[in-house]
């Protein structure tokens, strides 16, 4: 397994763990408060639809010429990665509230209780919420697996990394029967943002016809550079926030 493969598997594993933790929180909240049967039907419907999306997009992606694929995938990963990184930096620097699974779980519980008692064999609320949660989070997993996998011709490796991540989260969720609030989700999102942005930069430039000095080894330098930029951004933004806070205190 090459260094690029390790990076690919790690990025997919981390991203899929984060998405699976978020889906698990929603599923647990509706399952516990309302109807497990309807929740499982919703999960099943989402998984079938996700399978259809994969079957449609997978072959289409792998059929593209390599340079076209790298530009498209690189561009998409860059846009996606910068979104993740932006949110992660804003959270780490205190400009945005940290993602808290316990708080989201409590909110979902309240909403599920407020929606009234389930009636009939299938509870539409449980079905809809679990379907939406699993489908939307699953769509991000599929997007990451397909783009990473197709680009490196390692769809199997990417799918395996995603499968392990989802399986671990499901096993942990079944075992503790509560949201996985101890997973360091904010740190993981920061790491995923760095990885997606780095791979996007590397593949996007290659696909556009640029040649990296040092070949594939340049990816390590790109990851290190983007990580340093992100950490510097956190430090600068924390400093600015602290300065603004002290000005407000001084004025009061």
């Amino acid at each position: 397994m090459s260094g690029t493969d390790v990076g690919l598997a790690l990025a997919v594993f981390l991203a899929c763990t984060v998405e699976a933790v978020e889906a698990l929180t929603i599923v647990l909240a509706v399952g516990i408060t309302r109807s497990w049967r309807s929740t499982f039907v919703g999960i099943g419907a989402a998984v079938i639809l996700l399978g259809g999306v994969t079957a449609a997009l997978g072959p289409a992606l792998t059929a593209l010429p390599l340079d076209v694929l790298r530009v498209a995938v690189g561009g998409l990963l860059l846009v996606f990665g910068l979104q993740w990184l932006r949110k992660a930096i804003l959270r780490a620097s205190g400009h945005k509230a940290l993602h808290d699974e316990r708080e989201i779980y409590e909110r979902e519980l309240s909403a599920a209780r407020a929606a009234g008692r389930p009636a009939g064999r299938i509870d539409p609320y449980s079905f809809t919420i679990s379907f939406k949660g699993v489908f939307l989070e699953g769509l991000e997993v599929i997007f990451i697996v397909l783009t990473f996998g197709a680009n490196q011709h390692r769809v199997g490796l990417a799918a395996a990394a995603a499968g392990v991540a989802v399986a671990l989260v499901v096993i942990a969720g079944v075992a503790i029967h509560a949201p996985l609030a101890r997973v360091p989700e904010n740190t993981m999102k920061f790491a995923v943002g760095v990885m997606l942005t780095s791979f996007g930069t590397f593949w996007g430039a290659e696909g556009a016809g640029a040649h990296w000095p040092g070949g594939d080894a340049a990816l390590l330098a790109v990851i290190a550079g983007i990580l340093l930029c992100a950490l510097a951004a956190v430090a600068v933004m924390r400093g600015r926030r602290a300065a603004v806070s002290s000005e407000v205190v001084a004025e009061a």
Partner: protein
Amino acid sequence: MRRLRALGEFIWEFLIGDDWLVAAGVVIAIGVTALVATTKVAAWWILPVAVALLLALTLWRASRTS
């Protein structure tokens, strides 16, 4: 029509996200890289520089509204 609009909004939110300038900047940076790559000038550095600038820009925009 409402469903089509909702689908469009979902795709926009999924792919473009909170700041459309990032997506536009990425497209422009890849285009410039492709143009420079056809010359004898090295083009590999353009995307990393663009990423650093776009990250700074989008954080600055977000911090103004937070």
